């Protein structure tokens, strides 16, 4: 399939022009955009159009409108169409269709449900694909102006969005607080530099360690400029997938462990002594990856054969062995594939934005220190005991000594400038994330919580100094989580599942999405957060919410990034 890089170049030029104009975000103005085209059918008025930056948008307002507008910001879309022959991701990317709700425009179930409840929905496709936070904020500001002009019945606006859309939502709230009444940043991506750049970091470590252990021909970093580089990213994704399939296939069928043939840097003696699954799990632990995935809950064992006492005894051993030794590695395998798409194609995008140079660096990373004593104990079985742990860490140290990642300083400086999110809370905000989220992993949410708490503490101290009443909190956090056990088996082995709430990337149940909207609407109406009792009751009413606010999540510091 032909890569659509001509379009990408055009979009890049547009992005640069936006940057040059500067992110001076003022009061919304719809003057530069044409009026939307509207039609009414089935008791819903639908308007479409383009903002001045050519971003497509859509607005839907039901006849029984309740006064609350939900402004959705969709997540990251790859900068070009991924070739069809690339497994799992082929055909995706460069999708600039207007998106008014999670799942839309392909799946309108949630959009229709919200319209049925009286909410107005709106969203853009944004002007450019790839990392586009500042450009998208500008688009949203203009879109709000269009909506308010066309629909003066809008009484309140809730901004919400997921993944990069969460970042856009938060940036909109930071820069234009008067335009919205509540913000729901969902898995807001932040700290690009800590995640992908200097001093290792989640995305850097996962790919670099995988490359060194399983396939050193993976390029991973410093992609060539232009279409060739996008092709390199596609090839890398395929290599990650191939190595994962080689390991995972053996594990799922029989627990037999197979080092992929491409694992050329691992000495034969190590391969004979240590299973590949332990190396895979070590990658997950050192990078800070979730150790539960959409199909693997880290708990459930293989089915127990109760046909006889001897069969039960043997299958009970296998059952526990699967739980302790295989489950975490299988989860890492599944999550690695999930991460690899972003770690290759999105890295290509970011490298393009900073001058086609590598910005990843792990020269100062002490990988041995990234494995905590608690993790050594918790995953001792799966890592093949203390001897296995020490052997794997020695191997990693050798890899780093032989081939460390070295960043281009100018590229790294430019990367840091792309990270504009400050964490400032200017409107009542409820942030959401999942405990086993694979892309916007736990530390990103922890960072937001820390920022918000520090801001509130400072505000309380300032009020106290002036002998004024302490201000109310403006920020709350919700953690989604998977159920305790969800791994399923059939005669062929574990069943692949893709929509398990709390795992993967931006996976929530339908009731959870409805909880978000309800809380956002309530916040916008009250002009403050709902009471603690309501927040707690919401958390406790659904097992897919962690039942307390203070989930003890990983932080960047705790995982050594």
């Amino acid at each position, binding site marked *: 399939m032909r890569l659509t890089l001509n379009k990408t170049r055009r979009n890049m030029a547009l992005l640069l022009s936006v940057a040059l104009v500067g992110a001076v975000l003022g009061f919304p103005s719809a003057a530069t955009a044409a009026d939307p085209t509207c039609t009414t059918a089935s008791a819903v008025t639908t308007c479409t159009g383009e903002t001045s930056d050519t971003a497509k948008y859509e607005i839907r307002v039901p006849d029984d409108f309740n006064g609350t507008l939900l402004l959705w910001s969709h997540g990251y879309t790859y900068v070009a169409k991924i070739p069809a022959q690339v497994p799992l991701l082929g055909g995706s990317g460069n999708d600039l269709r207007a998106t008014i709700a999670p799942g839309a425009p392909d799946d309108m*179930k949630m959009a229709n*449900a919200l319209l*049925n*409840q009286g909410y107005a929905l709106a969203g853009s496709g944004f002007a450019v694909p790839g990392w586009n936070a500042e450009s998208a904020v500008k688009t949203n500001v203009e879109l709000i102006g269009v909506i308010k002009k066309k629909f003066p019945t809008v009484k309140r606006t809730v901004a919400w969005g997921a993944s990069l859309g969460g970042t856009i939502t938060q940036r909109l709230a930071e820069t234009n607080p008067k335009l919205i009444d509540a913000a729901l940043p969902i898995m807001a991506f932040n700290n690009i530099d800590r995640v992908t750049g200097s001093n290792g970091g989640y995305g850097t470590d996962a790919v670099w360690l995988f490359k060194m252990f399983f396939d050193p021909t993976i390029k991973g970093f410093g992609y060539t400029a232009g279409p060739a580089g996008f092709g390199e990213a596609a090839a890398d994704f395929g290599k990650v997938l191939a190595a994962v399939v080689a390991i995972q296939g053996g594990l799922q069928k029989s*627990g037999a462990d197979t080092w992929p043939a491409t694992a050329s840097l691992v000495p034969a003696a190590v391969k004979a002594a240590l299973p590949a699954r332990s190396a895979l799990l070590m990658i997950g632990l050192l990078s800070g990856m979730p*150790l*539960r995935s959409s199909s693997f*809950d*880290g*708990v459930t*064992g293989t089915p127990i054969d109760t046909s006889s*006492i*001897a069969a*039960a*005894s043997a299958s*009970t*051993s*296998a*059952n*526990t*062995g699967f*739980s*302790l*030794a295989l*489950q*975490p590695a299988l989860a890492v395998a599944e999550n690695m594939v999930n991460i690899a798409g972003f770690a290759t194609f999105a890295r290509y995008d970011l490298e393009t934005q900073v001058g086609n140079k590598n910005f990843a660096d792990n020269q100062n990373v002490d990988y041995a220190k990234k494995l*905590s004593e*608690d993790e*050594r*104990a*918790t*995953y*001792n*079985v799966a890592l*093949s*005991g*203390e*001897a*296995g742990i020490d052997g794997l860490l020695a191997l990693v140290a050798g890899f780093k000594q032989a081939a460390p990642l070295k960043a281009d300083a100018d590229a790294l400086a430019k990367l840091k400038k792309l990270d504009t999110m400050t964490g400032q809370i200017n409107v009542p905000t409820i942030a959401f994330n999942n405990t086993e989220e694979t892309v916007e992993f736990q530390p990103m949410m922890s960072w937001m919580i820390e920022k918000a708490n520090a801001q509130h503490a400072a505000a309380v101290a300032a009020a106290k100094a002036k002998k004024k009443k302490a201000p109310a909190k403006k920020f709350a956090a919700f953690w989604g989580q998977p159920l*305790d*056990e969800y791994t399923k088996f059939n005669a062929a082995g574990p069943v692949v599942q893709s929509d398990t709430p709390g795992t993967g990337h931006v996976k929530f149940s339908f*009731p959870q999405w*409805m*909880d978000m909207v*309800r809380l956002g609407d309530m916040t916008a109406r009250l002009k403050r957060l709902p*009471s603690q*009792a*309501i927040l707690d*009751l*919401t958390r*406790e*009413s659904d097992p897919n919410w*962690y*039942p*307390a606010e*203070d989930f*003890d999540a990983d932080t960047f510091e705790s995982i050594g990034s």
Partner: protein
Amino acid sequence: MIRALKNRVRVGAALVALAGLVSSGVSAQAAAAPGVTKDTITLGMTSAQSGAASPGYNKVGPAMRAYFDYINEKGGVYGRKIVLKLEDDKYVPTNAVNKVNKLILRDKVFALVGNLGTATHTAALKKTPIIKQGVPDLFVNTGYSGFASPKKYPTTFMYLPSYIMEAKIMAKYIKDKFPGKKVGILYQDDDFGKDGLAGFKAAGLTFVAGGTQKYASLSQATVGLTAQLTALKTSGAEVIILFGVTSATAVAMRTAAALGYGTTWGPQFILGSVGADPTTLLTLAGATTAEARAATLRSLTGALSLSFLPAATDTEDEYVKKFIEINTAYNKGVAWDNNVLVGMNQAMLVVQALRAAGQNPTRASLVSALKSKGGTFASAAYSKLDSANNVGFTGYWVGKYNSTGVIAPVDGGKPVVYTTDSSTANGDVATSTFVRPAMPADGVPTNS
């Protein structure tokens, strides 16, 4: 779908209304400790109730519950009945985190009692709010010395003597009774094994070349222990320490029999306490074949092991006698063994701790009472409970198995109890002068 959504909206509205009620109710009961009502005290426990690691250990929780049922019939603790919520973590750390979170955050238990396993509890302490919420974490069922750390784990109290203590006492016994003999060891390659090795090292016990063998936890069930036992045999070790969990001991004993133990090979086996319950060992063997059971018994006969409680078969012991009565009446159908004894004794300690915490206990008062008074609690153990330092019991006696798998003091008569601490700075071990408190009348504590 639309109807379902409308229902959802109604549920949402109901939640809002309910929130108001809950809110007012909360303020009215603000002083009550979590898990404590006028009539009940709710406790939580996680343990391996199923899975490969469960045999034997899965009897501890039900035994505790049986003792609590007995106490409840006798009036409970200051009129409150004890409710024990027992969760099955299957010995899987991730699952232990799930279950402890459930117990604390959803079930809102007052305290955790008897949680079992080193890796499982390490994970729970790291990933649940035990420390943050100050949840009393009483009588952890593992000998890993790292849990006795008031600074790191202020509310966690051990029950078993530490593996370091056990190793130091075992080392002294070997040096005294088997001087000059070559010693070998099979240990589990994790914190459990590391703790033991640290104790042996502190006591100056050295192992013969080729006689230090390890197994990755659980590998005993999947790849077996033939390589390790063969190496131990080749090393010429005359005394072999099996410092592993019960399932590993069981595999090791069967493997030893296959390698000629009892006919062409005759080392002295010494079993670590947590892998030495004879009933479980023989049950595990019997689950495979009758020949395996016979082989296990052959290897077990004459083996030595350490224990901090009386032998479960010592029916003359006043604690054992009373606990057997309670087990018969309140734990129907469960065979009496060392695991049941462990659980009953643990439950009796919990009752005393709750009583010592006062008529209106709080989590803080429970921790405080255990620290200040735990050393005086009645218990079947032959050594002192060092709860002032969050440590469990502090001594062991050495026993020998006979040809039916019954263990008795090695030199006959009353057990000689050795005591030490978890310091790795020295291997000091002394003969204990501890005088065990008498069993409370009718097995019902009345302390305050």
